[in-house]
């Protein structure tokens, strides 16, 4: 049975009841698996401007380079603006010795960035896709993360920030869709941050650049153009390691980060309408070190937890959250903690719409948890 027909049959005939199904093949392949819901414009940081995600990143980098004369941006193709337009205009504004291209060498880029940071200058390195960060894995884990610790605080590369586009994009296949946050979560000494929207991205990126620890900032590439919000033009900082409760609820806690936050927002709406279930939504934002307190406090209140991410299930970050929550809130749990994640396969090419943990799978898991 064809992929599409099987999926349609599962949706229509299944327990989920009638759900809207795209009418044509083209519509099916182009429908995004989420709807981006912009947050209201923040009023506390002055004038705002309509920006999408990549523009908010450019704005953050602009602010950072203006404020800090030692800040430099480098990576593959950043000079002309970057393959996702995140650095457009910066070279013209700040000069070619502050915004420059590197050759094709991720290990070299990060190693070089660590060196820049160790002298005290602010290094903002770009890795073109998170999938390509693996040659630099040794430098990040063995050098950047351990510099302060092994030198007894004599040296550190805290002014290093690494940015990389992250997550599924609809047609990325194996090497343009990965979410490697779990690999880095296993490494004390670095911080891993993932924003869900332009306002969040700018604030979190500026916090990462300011933060005195090496940070990895993953940007959901599917949101680069799709997410548009009113973003403050001036600098502002969103604190790291603080999760945000986006919606309060009493029956289920749902935790996600990046693009997946918008998916679970949809699920919460569905749950309210169809099941009368009130969901509490938490955007984790910082993966390492993560805000255990907010999540556990919420689970104590609701008794049920659903965590969702695109990365494969086994060893994904949901496992860490799940493990900690059951330690802290064991007696409060009404149902086993549910993890809705990608399959344990490489990120597929043609099977992507079926692979990703879309709102139907999350809804299904939620329903089973409610009825436990």
């Amino acid at each position, binding site marked *: *049975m064809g992929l599409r027909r099987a999926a349609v049959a599962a949706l229509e005939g299944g327990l989920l009841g009638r759900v809207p199904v795209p009418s044509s093949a083209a519509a099916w392949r182009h429908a995004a698996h989420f709807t981006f819901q912009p947050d209201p414009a923040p009023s506390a940081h002055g004038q705002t401007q309509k920006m999408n995600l990549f523009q908010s990143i450019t704005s953050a980098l602009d602010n950072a380079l203006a404020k800090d004369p030692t800040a430099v941006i480098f990576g*593959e193709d950043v000079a002309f603006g970057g393959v996702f337009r995140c650095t457009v205009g910066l070279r013209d504004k700040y000069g070619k010795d502050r915004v420059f291209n590197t*050759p*094709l*060498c991720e290990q070299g880029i990060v190693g070089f960035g660590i060196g820049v940071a160790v002298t005290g200058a602010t290094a903002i390195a770009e890795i073109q896709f998170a999938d*390509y960060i693996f040659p630099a894995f040794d430098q990040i884990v063995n050098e950047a993360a351990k510099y302060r610790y092994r030198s007894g605080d004599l040296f550190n590369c805290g002014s290093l920030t690494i940015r990389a586009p992250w997550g599924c994009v609809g*047609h990325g296949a*194996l090497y343009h869709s990965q979410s490697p946050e779990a690999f880095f979560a296993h490494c004390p000494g670095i911080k891993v941050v993932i924003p869900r929207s332009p306002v969040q991205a700018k604030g979190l990126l500026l916090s990462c650049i300011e933060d005195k620890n090496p940070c990895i900032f993953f940007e959901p590439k599917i949101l680069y153009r799709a997410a548009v919000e009113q973003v403050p033009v001036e600098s502002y900082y969103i604190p790291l390691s603080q999760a945000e409760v986006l919606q309060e609820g009493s029956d289920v806690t749902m935790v996600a980060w990046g693009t997946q936050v918008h998916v679970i927002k949809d699920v919460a709406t569905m749950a309210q309408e169809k099941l009368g279930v009130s969901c509490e939504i938490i955007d984790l934002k910082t993966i390492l070190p993560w805000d255990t307190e907010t999540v556990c406090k919420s689970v104590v209140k609701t008794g049920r937890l659903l965590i969702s991410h695109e990365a494969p299930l086994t060893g994904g970050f949901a496992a860490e959250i799940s493990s900690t929550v059951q330690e802290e809130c064991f007696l409060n749990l009404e149902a086993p903690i549910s993890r809705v994640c990608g399959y*344990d396969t490489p990120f597929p090419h043609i099977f992507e719409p079926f692979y990703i943990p879309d709102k139907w799978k999350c809804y299904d*898991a939620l329903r089973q948890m409610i009825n436990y």
Partner: protein
Amino acid sequence: MGAVSEVARVVVASRTYADFASEATFEIKKCDLHRLEEGPPATAVLTREEGLHYYKTMQTIRRMELKADQLYKQKIIRGFCHLYDGQEACCVGLEAAIKPTDHLITAYRAHGYTFTRGTSVREILAELTGRKGGCAKGKGGSMHMYAKNFYGGNGIVGAQVPLGAGIALACKYFGKDEICLTLYGDGAANQGQVFETYNMAALWKLPCIFICENNRYGMGTSVERAAASTDYYKRGDYIPGLRIDGMDLLCVREATKFAAEHCRSGKGPILMELQTYRYHGHSMSDPGVSYRTREEIQEVRSKSDPITLLKDRMVNNNLASVEELKEIDVEVRKEIEEAAQFATTDPEPPLEELSNHIYCNDPPFEVRGPNQWIRYKSAC
């Protein structure tokens, strides 16, 4: 029009093979040498049969890539698609100089090599459209195509180079006089792992031909802006190197024969730099004109197009007639059309394929799914 071509066909048919020369000798450009006393010969012999075969192969690859371009714009092919048109002389020239039992590995601009290494056009196009008739069952896509003795098809830049050395080691170990051609681009030439591989190959005298396909641009970055030394054939340092005109098929063939002989005689690795050019941008999402001028592309197309070069040589030396080559064009077009038809109508791989081939497993195991109530069986 029909009447004219009919007449032409009659004219061609009435000319016997005795009208054509059976072979011709051509002078080819000398190669730049690094740590080599002598290089490949300065002349090459092309027989009529070889010429027709090379022409057909190059034309097939050209039309296949243009068809992929068309299908991509119609959104029938999605994802990433890196086209090879302009560089046909490289893959056809290389294949002409090696045996089917030799091994080849390249990066993601692999459609040409997939074809020359034995995969049919319909399987390639079906893989691009993600159907089960594709050469990787629709699971790999543009960048991950494989065939016998062709190890892909690799997405991560430079990652295939150490693999190539490993294959060469196996060749040496099995002692069957096979070699490995390890290809990479001008962008990948700056990756650390490439230099690690040079060292291993030279130290252990592996029968590995390193081939840098220098098409002057690593995605959007010209070689001058990416490399401290653009003499890629010298970058192997202690490894001897050759720089070859990659737009001339005969140059590529003779140089590869020379390099293959070097490796097979146990002298260790050798490096070839093929100076070539791609007409399309880096991939289908790159228009290809923001970092180079249209005039430049046009100039290469008019002065150095590999197919035109071969055609002119053959026609001017009486190895083939213009009509004959036109007939080959028509045949090729037909083949591509049929393949495209197959690629658009073949069904997608079944859902079960999602969980297959993760591991080599016996017996089958369960693949954990999006939540604890969805599991999938990995059957093979």
